[in-house]
């Protein structure tokens, strides 16, 4: 079984982003970029399945600018076998990403696709579910445990109120939550090896997908700020203020 893992290049999760004062967007020109953390978890899970003899090949795909090749390379250093870069300089919305991925899936024929549950830049949380809908495949989002069970996958999902376990018919789509695993660091020998692993590059336009955004971003603004309040000296003062000033207890 081949596993396909789509990955996204995003602003590093440690960077405090800055909203441009003219409302035109978020200033990411000089920001440190990294792989979306949920996608690292997706790669880790794919590699563990491969190491357990459940998967033959782990293929990464990224849709983005030339620099997204670095993101793919990061995943190859973790241990994935090869990469596909679908070049697009302009941002691509989740729906168009899902359509391009569908075309990639038809070429590659994976038995399992593992994606991050959301990208930490636009926080859309859509691509995996959309791809499952377009392909007509089973889906299990927000996975905290994944097992291969013959021609099925058994997935435990994080849901409101607890955990749910579902059984999916293969081929299927799984999106990762935080507690699925802890991604490995790339070792030096693997980093060296990754330099020789192939990354095929294609133009997004080749897939015949309409890339025009459906959502027009009118403006981007800072959220309303919240000011620090007062420090109270002890519990008695806290209770008194919550009761008499804030009126919440």
């Amino acid at each position, binding site marked *: 079984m081949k596993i396909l893992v789509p990955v996204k290049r995003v602003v590093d999760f440690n960077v405090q982003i800055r909203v441009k004062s003219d409302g035109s967007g978020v200033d990411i020109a000089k920001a440190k970029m990294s792989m979306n953390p949920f996608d690292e978890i997706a790669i880790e899970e794919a590699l563990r399945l491969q190491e357990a003899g459940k998967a033959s090949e782990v293929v990464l795909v990224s849709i983005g600018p030339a620099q997204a090749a670095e993101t793919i390379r990061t995943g190859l250093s973790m241990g994935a076998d090869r990469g596909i870069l679908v070049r697009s300089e302009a941002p691509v919305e989740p729906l168009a990403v899902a359509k391009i991925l569908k075309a990639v899936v038809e070429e590659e024929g994976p038995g399992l696709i593992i994606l991050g549950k959301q990208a*930490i830049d636009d926080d859309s949380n859509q691509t995996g579910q959309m791809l499952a*809908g377009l392909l007509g495949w089973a*889906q299990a989002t927000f996975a905290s445990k994944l097992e291969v069970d013959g021609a099925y996958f058994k997935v435990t999902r*994080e*849901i409101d109120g607890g955990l749910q376990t*579902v*059984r999916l*018919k293969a081929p299927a789509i799984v999106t990762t939550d935080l507690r699925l695993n802890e991604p490995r660091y790339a070792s030096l020998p693997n980093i060296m090896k990754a330099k020789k692993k192939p990354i095929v590059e294609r133009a997004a336009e080749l897939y015949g997908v309409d890339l025009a955004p459906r959502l027009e971003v009118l403006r981007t603004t800072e959220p309303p700020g919240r000011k*620090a309040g007062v420090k109270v000296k002890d*519990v008695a003062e806290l209770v008194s203020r919550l009761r008499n000033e804030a009126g919440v207890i």
Partner: protein
Amino acid sequence: MTTLLLAEHDHASLKDVTTKALTAAAQLGAPVDVLVAGENARGAAEAAAKLSGVAKVLLADAPAYAHDLAEPLAALVRSLAPGYDAFVAPATSRFKNVMPRVAALLDVMQISEIIKVVAPDTFERPIYAGNAIQTVKSRDAKKVITVRSSTFAATGEGGSAPVEAVAAAADPGLSSFVGERVARNNRPELASARVIVSGGRGMRSSANFTKYIEPLADRLGAGVGASRAAVDSGFAPNDWQVGQTGKVVAPELYIAIGISGAIQHLAGMKDSKVIVAINKDADAPIFQVADYGLVADLYEAVPELTEELGKLGR
């Protein structure tokens, strides 16, 4: 022009988040029908029928809708799609799972977790963990929207809409339910709790959650939350997590205990009306958003707070 609101419910009754998402759905300006898909879900449908401003309730009652499986529910919504211009649902785990699948089937770009309806085609939504707010205008003929319910007021009762049965759509049969582990207790759910008491890495163990956080929460009739650090460390179950990748809450009172205030966590609670922070580190970022900060050892301050509230008859 009609809007279809997808109801969050537990079959017997409706969840509060539905009444908040109804407020957002009504702001689109079209009549609102409510879809209750479940098994033996007449109770939830009748509750929805009483909400103010609901034109009609569609009840799809079938075993396929018993367990939150995305594929049959998406197929059902798609079968109803010709009659509607907008599909709105609260951003709960059920609908975060199913709505993008619906959007793809309808060839629509979903608008996730809106916090404001600016116009029927224009919405505000947070990006970068709430560190920026985007105003987006949808060019799609049909709209698929999830609602961050904490930012909308609840719609009250006062209606008497008819409840109509709708046929189940063909189940694609791609997945099946194996089991679930859902906490059963009498505490309010985070999404609708008036007060939330949350613990962080400073709690150091799950036993300390039981010993310090839960008694305070129970005294206040509060929901219990946790930071991602506390959940990752195994101090608290995953469904307690408040933050960018957990639950986003906006209670009247949020008490953060032993939580430093990582961006990730602030994204999930900074819209609370009143924030209290108890932390022994006076420089913790949580104090920058707290209305009332107490720099203290939580292992002394929290039992004292629980006791003081007890004296007030709480």
